[in-house]
């Protein structure tokens, strides 16, 4: 609504310079159509005409900008999240909530917080790695502006997420945050390692299907 008031201000200033224009004041010099001279007609224009014009203009601009802003917000809300899930964060919140009504071991809460911190670190690294590539894609027109905006916002979200985790750590155990951050880093890498290890089985199955392999139960090839 701020923009509206400045518009009004501008508009008054604009109105000050009155239109004592040259309507109907056609100067026919020693023209070729001398007959036209006595037929000049003055069209009476009310003082309110420019006012009306300006009001229509301002109102339509304001309406448009409001509509546009709403549409942008809706579009941004429709954008998919950069990351598919926020399980680590949600789990921590749920457990914290649960601990208020039910007896939960304090270390379970700590574990969930460490998991959350580790995930935040993973996301920070991931975003840092992808940042230049996504920026390049945005500049070359491969992805739209919305996604780029969303991506930039996500960088801040992830930062805030890690800061929040540190604060929670301080609340759970005063003086812990420094060690907490180190632990999170180790956890982040080790979890990545173990996710890869645990995917081996599933990968094998996909390969058997993709390559149409005939295996014996002990894993050797059937002849």
């Amino acid at each position, binding site marked *: 609504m701020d923009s509206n008031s400045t518009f009004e201000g501008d508009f008054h200033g604009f109105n000050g310079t009155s239109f004592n224009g040259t309507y109907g004041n056609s100067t026919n010099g020693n023209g070729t159509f001398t007959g036209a001279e006595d037929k000049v007609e003055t069209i009476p224009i009310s003082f309110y005409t420019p006012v009306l014009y300006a009001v229509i203009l301002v109102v339509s601009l304001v309406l448009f900008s409001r509509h546009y802003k709403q549409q942008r917000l809706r579009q941004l809300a429709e954008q998919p999240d950069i990351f598919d899930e926020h399980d680590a964060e949600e*789990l921590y919140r749920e457990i914290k909530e649960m601990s208020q009504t039910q007896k939960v071991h304090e270390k379970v809460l700590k574990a969930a917080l460490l998991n959350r911190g580790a995930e935040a670190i993973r996301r920070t690294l991931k975003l840092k790695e992808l940042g230049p590539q996504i920026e390049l894609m945005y500049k070359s027109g491969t992805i739209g502006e919305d996604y780029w905006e969303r991506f930039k916002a996500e960088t801040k979200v992830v930062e805030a997420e890690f800061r929040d985790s540190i604060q929670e750590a301080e609340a759970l155990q005063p003086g812990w945050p420094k060690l907490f951050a180190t632990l999170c880093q180790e956890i982040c890498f080790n979890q990545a390692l173990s996710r890869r290890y645990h995917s081996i089985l599933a990968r094998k199955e996909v390969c058997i299907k993709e390559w149409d392999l005939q295996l014996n139960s002990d894993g050797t090839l059937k002849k």
Partner: protein
Amino acid sequence: MSLLYNENSKKLSLPEERIEAAKAAGSLEALEINLEQVNKLAAGIIGESNPNFTPQPNDERSKMIKSMFESGLAQLKQQKLVEALKNITLAVELAQRSRMPYEAFAIQLQEIQFMMRHKIDLSLLTGRFLDALQDIEFLMNTGMAQSDVFIRKADALLKLRQYQDAAVCCERGLSLFPNETKLKALMHEIKRNLAEFNGEN
């Protein structure tokens, strides 16, 4: 949408309806992994008496894993390949299961890579080429890019009759290690097979 908490085991689990909902949304896997990670971490922390525990590796667990691995090596010396493979697999499994995520990553990585290399060799020797291939992929995924990894991967792919993939792997190995004679020999073998596969001889 809530969680179930078992006060005795200190473990969290998902209620039935939440599993169903997550499955429908296709997000169950990620959720289960996260829950498993929290449970594992919790179990580990509860075991720690010092609230300011550090990322030091646990000596007791290191010893256990080491002894299991060494028993595998001993069997290898006696040419009991299948048994050796079994024990080394168990050692790898043990390391993954008992090590805590906050124990130093550098040490864990080194440990598992070292054991995995032996496991891969044994898998290849005993004809378990798919197992070997996936373990090699794991190694490469953890940033290992030595020439012997490429040799083993190309070999496994060749044995699995994935000639095109084998050639691609071999060529990459050769561009990183241009003087590796074993890779050159493998490349020759793969080309021969590929020509046969494409009916080009």
